[in-house]
């Protein structure tokens, strides 16, 4: 029997206008979009009154901590947290313990996700063995096992010669590389953005150039090889500038940023609250504005979460010792809607592209990332009028380290549909 689901009474985005439309799903695919569709007896229904039916969000960058640090997150809890944030596909970084640098590790995640995750999980393999920056990992074998990209996320491949080889080889192995841009000599043992706030707090600074010299390097390497490269978590004005210039001259570079870089600045670190210790660090207002401008004009292609769960023991310690990162799935859309759309900086359509269509294109996923007949029925049904206070204890992620704690956001995910099945429903 073919499973059918009808989403009734909702609205969809059509050329940036919200128009009433019902969405009929059969066998995991969208089959019809029209107003006033009637369900037959075999069709389940969702009442989407007051809800906007958006394509499900696709996260290019998250950490699921499985295997090795499952006290922080695992594939089941991470998948659930993602579903609660309206994500239908998530790409997890390989810096687990052990790290995902070979085909069996990729298979482990694929298998476990199939059994435990309510959303689609796509592993990203390491570029180098052990993420040590020494020898290439088996990129082709990892791709065969299901990896969608490769990254040594958490560090840069410091050896430029090796990175060049990796970019060259990855193209023929059918993978693209995601670069975590951080020159470790420049970043040193820094913990926060270099600037006035770091100086006031007396915390060790990370200069913007630690990111920017690597962004510049990856752009130049991709340009000379005429190959693709994707820049992870762009956080500085200088990086946005480099990307804009590179795209203008046709370099095959794409980039993502994260909600915290367009929503917050390093003012947050002045109280020494380690939840705001992020890598790359929260920057200054000029950087935040540049990131927003980059999102608006297409310099930055996608919003990713860099969902980085950490348990209290890793965060409730001295600032230098505390782990870097914030959870992000459950606040990403609301942060985007609050800071970018509601504030008038971009349309809901653009935000949706940044969270669905563009990441789908970067990943080469076809027939997903839009609400269209024939596309995968991966959907996020959101209430744009819901205000909510971010209470860490209520997050579904195992970890509660969110930079948005205590903040009022607008926009809440009510249902998440993955392949025509309800993966999440907010019952509150």
């Amino acid at each position: 029997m073919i499973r059918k689901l009808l989403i009734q009474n909702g609205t969809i985005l059509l050329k940036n206008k919200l128009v009433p439309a019902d969405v009929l799903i059969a066998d995991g695919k969208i089959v019809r979009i029209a107003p006033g569709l009637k369900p037959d007896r075999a069709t389940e229904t969702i009442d989407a009154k007051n809800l906007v039916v958006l394509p499900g969000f696709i996260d290019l960058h998250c950490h699921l901590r499985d295997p090795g640090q499952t006290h922080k997150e695992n594939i089941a809890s991470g998948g659930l947290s993602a579903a609660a944030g309206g994500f239908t596909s998530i790409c997890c970084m390989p810096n687990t313990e052990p790290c995902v640098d070979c085909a069996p590790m990729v298979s482990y995640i694929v298998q476990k996700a199939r059994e435990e995750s309510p959303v689609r999980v796509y592993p990203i393999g390491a570029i180098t063995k052990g993420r040590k920056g020494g020898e290439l990992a088996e990129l082709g074998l990892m791709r065969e096992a299901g990896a969608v990209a490769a990254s040594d996320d958490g560090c840069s491949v410091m050896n430029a010669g090796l990175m060049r080889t990796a970019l060259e080889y990855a193209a023929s192995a059918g993978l693209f590389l995601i670069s975590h841009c951080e020159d470790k000599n420049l970043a040193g043992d820094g913990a926060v953005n270099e600037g006035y706030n770091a100086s006031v707090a007396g915390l060790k600074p990370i200069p913007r150039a630690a990111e920017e010299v690597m962004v510049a390097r990856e752009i130049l390497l991709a340009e000379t090889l005429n190959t693709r490269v994707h820049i992870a978590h762009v956080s500085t004005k200088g990086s946005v500038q480099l990307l804009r210039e590179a795209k203008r001259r046709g370099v095959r570079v794409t980039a993502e940023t994260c909600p915290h870089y367009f929503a917050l600045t390093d003012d947050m670190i002045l109280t020494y609250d380690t939840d705001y210790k992020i890598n790359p660090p929260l920057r200054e207002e000029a950087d935040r504005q540049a990131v927003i401008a980059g999102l608006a004009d297409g310099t930055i292609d996608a919003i990713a979460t860099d969902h980085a769960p950490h348990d209290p023991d890793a965060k409730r310690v001295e600032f230098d010792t505390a782990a870097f990162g914030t959870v992000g799935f459950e606040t990403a859309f609301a942060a985007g809607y609050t800071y970018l759309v509601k504030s008038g900086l971009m349309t809901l359509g653009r935000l949706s592209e940044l969270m669905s269509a563009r990441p789908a294109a970067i990943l080469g996923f076809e027939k997903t990332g839009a609400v269209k007949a024939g596309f995968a029925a991966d959907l996020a049904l959101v209430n744009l009028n819901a205000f909510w206070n971010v209470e860490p204890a209520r997050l579904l992620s195992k970890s509660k380290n969110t930079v948005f704690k205590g903040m009022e956001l607008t926009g809440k995910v009510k249902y998440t549909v993955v392949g025509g099945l309800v993966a999440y429903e907010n019952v509150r």
Partner: protein
Amino acid sequence: MWKEKDFLGLKDVPFAVIENILDSAAEMKRAFLASERKTSCAGKAVVTLFYENSTRTRASFELAAKALSANAMNLAVATSSVAKGESLIDNGKTLDALQARIVVIRHSVAGAPHLLAKNMAAGVINAGDGMNEHPTQALLDMFTIREKFGGFKGLKVLIAGDIKHSRVARSNIYGLRAAGAEITVCAPATLMPAGIERFGVRVVRTLREGAAGADVLMALRLQLERQKSGMFPSAAEYNRFYNLNGEIAALAKSGAIVMHPGPINRGLEISGALADGNSSVITGQVTNGVAVRMALLEMLLAK
């Protein structure tokens, strides 16, 4: 006047509070020099918890606590459960259980006293945290300056040396600015913090510029490790450009004083002759340290 249980820094502390502490410290100094024991904090436990080395600050706090009849106890971090991996917060809980009223903490990480303060009932005094603040050092420096000049308004203070890594510099900048002094800082660019101009200080490139017309010449200790990390090429080169010596001091106002928080690297950031000379108040600073710490402890414990 001071409502908080903790004293973590001079940033944003109103000058009236500072003045209160300094006023009280004058009486404390008299009592301390006369070997009189005060009883205002009798029986209350004051614990020094030092994660970094210290001679004068820790000794000074212990003497101050004892001079107030408090129970002073030192927790030697190297031989304590910290060495077994006990966390800072757990340490705080333990000290609360031992009925500590004040914990004086020094730590290499900025914000560690704030973390401890947030997670324990006892009051926390910051005795130096990373590159952030060392408020009691600035209080004793201010006490020393006030003893010599009677006040702060319009005084010209040069702070020279490793400003970037110095918690002493930051606390002095906050306190002295609140008091109305004019501050000039001088350091090689690699030892100057980002955004220094926003601290409300004048930045000069040479010691000569900074010393000209100054009332106070304050040299900071240079950590020799900074040279290994390449922040300056050699001790000799540093000495050539940033050594506070008689020749530089001669450019200051007559009656100017020479200060140093100690411990001194003689011949590196300050010449031995200047440190030992008539204009030097360096040993007086140490005595005054006990007085201001007595005043601060009493302020926090008297409630």
